[in-house]
Structure formats: structure tokens, C-alpha cells
């Protein structure tokens, strides 16, 4: 079977064209480097079947990053190259094209984003380009699907280019080609231009980013809480849960029943594989995941995220990160699970570790925040502000320390700022679907497994022993009532409910501050803990959680003495 390789710079719309050609969904975003691993699909033309490979975006054939290494390796086995270019940035994109020419593999050139050239005042004579480089050139608009058929009909016309040049003069050669095929006309500033200026400007950029964040939270709370409290929770509690309790009532083997529905009859105090293990990922986490991915996908396709990275680069540089880490950290203010998953966009392990620590420590997740605020306001606004201030300061200090301890340099931001593009329904839904599917196939099993393990420990009374052993002296240090032990256990399942459980304890303001900070930090929730293991490996995950645990203990102990 012949192999067709989709090759091009990052963020030129390869993934969209790939899914148009093969009907397979791939995540495409409006920023560089979404495809690190390659994806395969199949395309049948006439009677011939082709294997289509979506190669990670690369700026050059001399690999400088992991994604580019993968790209160069894949080129060795390609039969046809489909070189995809962003026609709004022809000159830079041609650099890869003329390098590909040297590979002597039959090739087609696709000018993507063709529809955008008109209102950007760019006119490209593609017939002339075809003449110069000697391979078919096809104008395409991947998002609307225009020109995709052309690609399919012209695949067989792919040929080896006879264009020859001196590799050391590449930019001069490209300049020559661009000058002869492209005309730029002056045009007025559009709305997007002004929007672009404002969102990346040093003064207006930060407030706009904060507004974007605020709107994001509003939407996430609206969708997430609405779905959880009004639909999924009632459905679960009035239909599913009674059904399961009923069915398992016939099981007379105590151990088996405890495995299925847990030791306690109260849902959120037991760890049953059919009850809590379903409730946590589906009712607690899923609504927020869905809501977050809706907003995130929109912002990604719009092209806003690289601008957030620029605006916050300065701040993150102080703790040894670059602006791209702002994205996971901001997501973490909502829910830690998508935040941890999104650390994939970072390059080095060092960056991932520091970012994860910031995600886990800088602020509670959205449901927990809501609970701390609503309960804390009984003690006054100063108590609430103090809790968040302390959390923020600890997070900054810890990441500063990590930055000093962990070997390696703070990376510099170096990224293309893509033009704003109005997101299309087709790609949005496609992406949302893939993400939700991978949440169910990757994260949910981990969470269920996690609840199962805890249940085993609980049935075997290991947790009871542990909480007495570890809990009692720990609480003695923090001057909190002994009943906190069971709340801590509960907090592992649902961090927001653990805060609610503090209310019957009759804590004073100082105890509330200490208890809240401890409950935010001591352990991530079961969903984020097992997502962390999946993303970073068990060793690193344990290191990070123990670090956070030790810090939380130290801080709350000091606070207890100081306040």
C-alpha cells in the first residue's frame, strides 16, 4: 500500500485536511505543536487504497524538537508527500517546501487557508508557483472543505520536482519565488487586527486575559454545575443508585457486596465500584471536563492561547517556566484533571513538574473554591482572602524553590503567534468528541481503579488503621478536632464536600483557615491523583504529591502557631 504523508509547518491545518481526507478525527488547534505523535488513516481512490499519515508539524527538516524528529523519521518511508502550506504566510512556509524538494519524493503542494488570502490583501498566482517548482499546486480551505476533492483527484499527478537550487541560499531563493507569485495589497485594519493588538499589548493584554478567564469560569460554572446538579446528580441518585442497591441486596457474600457498593450505605463515604467509582468520574468530574473543553476548544481554535502565553510569560519566567505554562495553571483554577492533561503541551519534564505543582497548589478547584467562599464568608471576607492569599504565596515560594533545585534552565518563549481565526463548528465538535472520548477511555478507568484500590484498603480496615496512625498526631499538630480524620478521607473523593463537612464541627476562624488550607493542599482528589499517575508515571506522581503534602503540613503548622 502506498503511503501519503501530510507534511507542513505547525499550525497550517494539516489535521483538519487529514480528517477531511480520511474521515478520522484528530485534534487540531490554532497553535503550534498539537500533533506530537502521528496519526494514520486510509483513503481509497478508485480501487487503490492509500495509507495517509498526519506528520507532526515541522519548520525544517533539520530536527530541533521531538515532533520534528518524528517528522524526519517518517519521511524515509513516504511514497507521496502532500506538502501543506499556510497561504497567508507563504514565504516562511516555502522554506520547508524547498527542503522537501531535495528529498526526491513525488509531491503535491496544498495552499491551505485560501479563503483567508482575499481579505488579507494577499493574491497568489498558484499556476505560476506550479510552473516554478514543477509539482501540482492546489488551493484549499480545509475548514470549509473547499478544494479537498481536488487533492483526491490529483494525488496520482504527484511528481518529483525538477527545481534545483543551492541549499545555502534557501531564503534568497524563497524570496525570489515569493516575489514572483505573490502580490500584497494594502488594506485597512480589520476588527481582528485591533483585537490582536489589544490582546497581546503589555497594558491591555493582562486585563483582557483576566476578563477572558472570568468569562470562562462563568460559562464553566453555568454548564458544569447545571449539568451536575440538575441533571446527572438527580438521575444518579433517583434512578441508578436505588437500582444498584436493590440489585446488590440479593448478594449475600458480604465481601463481594462491599466491593460492589462499599462498606457504608452513605454514597460519599463508601468506595463501591458500582456506586462511588461511577459517581465520581461521571457526576463530579465529567460536567466540568465537558464545560472546560467546550471553552478551551473555542479559545484554541480562535488562536487566543499563544497570546495568553505572551502576556503571562514574564510572570512565569520568574519561576523557571515560560508563558505556555499559564494555560494549564489557569485551567487548574477550574478543575485539576484537564489542567494536568494539558501539561502535555510543555516540552521538558522539569517544566511539567513545576507546572503541576503550581496547578495543585496555587488555588483550589472551582467547586472547592465555591465552598470555601460560601462557608468562609460567615467568618468575614478577611478570612476568605487570607486563605487564598496564603495558598497563592505558598505556591509561588514552592515553585521558586523547585526552580532552584531542579536542574536545567528556564526555557525561553519562542513561538509563532497565529492570526485569529473564527472557530468552525465542524472542527470544534470533532475536537470535543475526541477529548471526551479520551477522557472516558484513559482517565475514567484510572479513577475507577483508584476507587477500587481504596475500597479494598477500606474493607481490609487498612485505612482505619492508617487514619488513626497518621491522622491523630497530625491533627494534634494542627489543633483540629479528631473528627477531621474522616473528612480527610472524604476529601480524597470530593474536595468540595470535604469543606462542607467542616461546617458542623463548629470551628473558630483560625481553625477554619488552617483546616481549609490543609484540605485544599494535603492530597489531590482521587481523579486528579490518578490522572497525574497516568501523565507523569507513578514515581514522579508520588514525589509531587508527597512534596505537596509535606508543604501543606508545614504551612498549616506554622499558621497554627502564628495566627
Amino acid at each position: 500500500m502506498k503511503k501519503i504523508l501530510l507534511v507542513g509547518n505547525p499550525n497550517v491545518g494539516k489535521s483538519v485536511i487529514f480528517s477531511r481526507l480520511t474521515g478520522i478525527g484528530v485534534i487540531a488547534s490554532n497553535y503550534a505543536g498539537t500533533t506530537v505523535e502521528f496519526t494514520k488513516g486510509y483513503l481509497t481512490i478508485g480501487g487503490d487504497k492509500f495509507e495517509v499519515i498526519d506528520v507532526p508539524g515541522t519548520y525544517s527538516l533539520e530536527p530541533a524538537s521531538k515532533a520534528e524528529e518524528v517528522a524526519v523519521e517518517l519521511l524515509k518511508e513516504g511514497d507521496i508527500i502532500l506538502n501543506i502550506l499556510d497561504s497567508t504566510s507563504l514565504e516562511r512556509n516555502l522554506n520547508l517546501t524547498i527542503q522537501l524538494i531535495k528529498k526526491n519524493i513525488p509531491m503535491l503542494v496544498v495552499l491551505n487557508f485560501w479563503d483567508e488570502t482575499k481579505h488579507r490583501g494577499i493574491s497568489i498566482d498558484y499556476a505560476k508557483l506550479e510552473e516554478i517548482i514543477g509539482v501540482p499546486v492546489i488551493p484549499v480551505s480545509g475548514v470549509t472543505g473547499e478544494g479537498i476533492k481536488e487533492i483526491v483527484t490529483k494525488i496520482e499527478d504527484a511528481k518529483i520536482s525538477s527545481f534545483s537550487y543551492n541549499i545555502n541560499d534557501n531564503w534568497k531563493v524563497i524570496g525570489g519565488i515569493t516575489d514572483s507569485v505573490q502580490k500584497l495589497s494594502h488594506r485597512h485594519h480589520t476588527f481582528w487586527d485591533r483585537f490582536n493588538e489589544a490582546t497581546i499589548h503589555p497594558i491591555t493584554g493582562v486585563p483582557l486575559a483576566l476578563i477572558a478567564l472570568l468569562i470562562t469560569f462563568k460559562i464553566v460554572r453555568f454548564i458544569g454545575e447545571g449539568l451536575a446538579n440538575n441533571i446527572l446528580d438527580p438521575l444518579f441518585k433517583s434512578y441508578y443508585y436505588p437500582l444498584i442497591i436493590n440489585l446488590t441486596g440479593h448478594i449475600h457474600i458480604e465481601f463481594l457486596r462491599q466491593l460492589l457498593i462499599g462498606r457504608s450505605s452513605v454514597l460519599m463515604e463508601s468506595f463501591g465500584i458500582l456506586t462511588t467509582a461511577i459517581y465520581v468520574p461521571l457526576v463530579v468530574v465529567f460536567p466540568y471536563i465537558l464545560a472546560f473543553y467546550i471553552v478551551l476548544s473555542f479559545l484554541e481554535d480562535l488562536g487566543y492561547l499563544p497570546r495568553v502565553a505572551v502576556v503571562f510569560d514574564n510572570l512565569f519566567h520568574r519561576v523557571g517556566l515560560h508563558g505556555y505554562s499559564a494555560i494549564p495553571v489557569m485551567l487548574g483554577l477550574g478543575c485539576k484533571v484537564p489542567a494536568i492533561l494539558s501539561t502535555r503541551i510543555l516540552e521538558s519534564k522539569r517544566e511539567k513538574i513545576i507546572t503541576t505543582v503550581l496547578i495543585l497548589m496555587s488555588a483550589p478547584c472551582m467547586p472547592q473554591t465555591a465552598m470555601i467562599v460560601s462557608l468562609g464568608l460567615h467568618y468575614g471576607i478577611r478570612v476568605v482572602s487570607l486563605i487564598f492569599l496564603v495558598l497563592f504565596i505558598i505556591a509561588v515560594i514552592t515553585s521558586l524553590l523547585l526552580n532552584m533545585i531542579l536542574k536545567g534552565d528556564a526555557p525561553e518563549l519562542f513561538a509563532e503567534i497565529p492570526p485569529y481565526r473564527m472557530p468552525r463548528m465542524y472542527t470544534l465538535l470533532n475536537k470535543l468528541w475526541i477529548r471526551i472520548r479520551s477522557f472516558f477511555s484513559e482517565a475514567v478507568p484510572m479513577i475507577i481503579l483508584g476507587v477500587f484500590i481504596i475500597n479494598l484498603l477500606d474493607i481490609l480496615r487498612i485505612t482505619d488503621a492508617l487514619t488513626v496512625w497518621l491522622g491523630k498526631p497530625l491533627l494534634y499538630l494542627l489543633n483540629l478536632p479528631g473528627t477531621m480524620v474522616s473528612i480527610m478521607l472524604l476529601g480524597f473523593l470530593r474536595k468540595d464536600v470535604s469543606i462542607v463537612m467542616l461546617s458542623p464541627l463548629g470551628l473558630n476562624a483560625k481553625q477554619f483557615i488552617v483546616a481549609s488550607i490543609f484540605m485544599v493542599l494535603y492530597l489531590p482528589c482521587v481523579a486528579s491523583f490518578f490522572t497525574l499517575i497516568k501523565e507523569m508515571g507513578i514515581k514522579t506522581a508520588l514525589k509531587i504529591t508527597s512534596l505537596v503534602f509535606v508543604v501543606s503540613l508545614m504551612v498549616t503548622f506554622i499558621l497554627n502557631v502564628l495566627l
Partner: protein
Amino acid sequence: MINLTQLKNDEKARVICVEGGHCFIRRLETMGITPGVEIIKTSSHFLCGPLIVSVKSTKVAIGHGMARRVMVEPL
């Protein structure tokens, strides 16, 4: 000859050279920042923040430390 951080906003310049190792030079080259090209600095963030340049109709964000090693001649 000055470096990119010293260039004023909205000023045009020609890249003279990039100071650094082979990898560094190549990394910048992939985005089209290479001796001889025209570059426009569109904005810069304070306190040694990143700056945005426009090269070959593409906008690129570049960290302060990296920008210091790109030598340019204002046009």
C-alpha cells in the same frame, strides 16, 4: 548594530547576525529569523518580558534572553 531588545517598537530593521550555537541559530532560522531578512518589532513587554516581531508576514513571540542575541541594523 544593536540587538533586538534595543530596537524601538514599530521600527523596522535588518537582521545582521544571530549570536549563539548551531542549534540556536537553526531554531531561529526555521521561523525565518536569519541574517539579511527584514524584521519589524511590533511590541515588547516590560521588565524583560517577551517581544513580538513580524517576519515574513508571520508574527513571532520571542523571549527577552533570546532577543538579546539577535543583532540588527535599524532601517
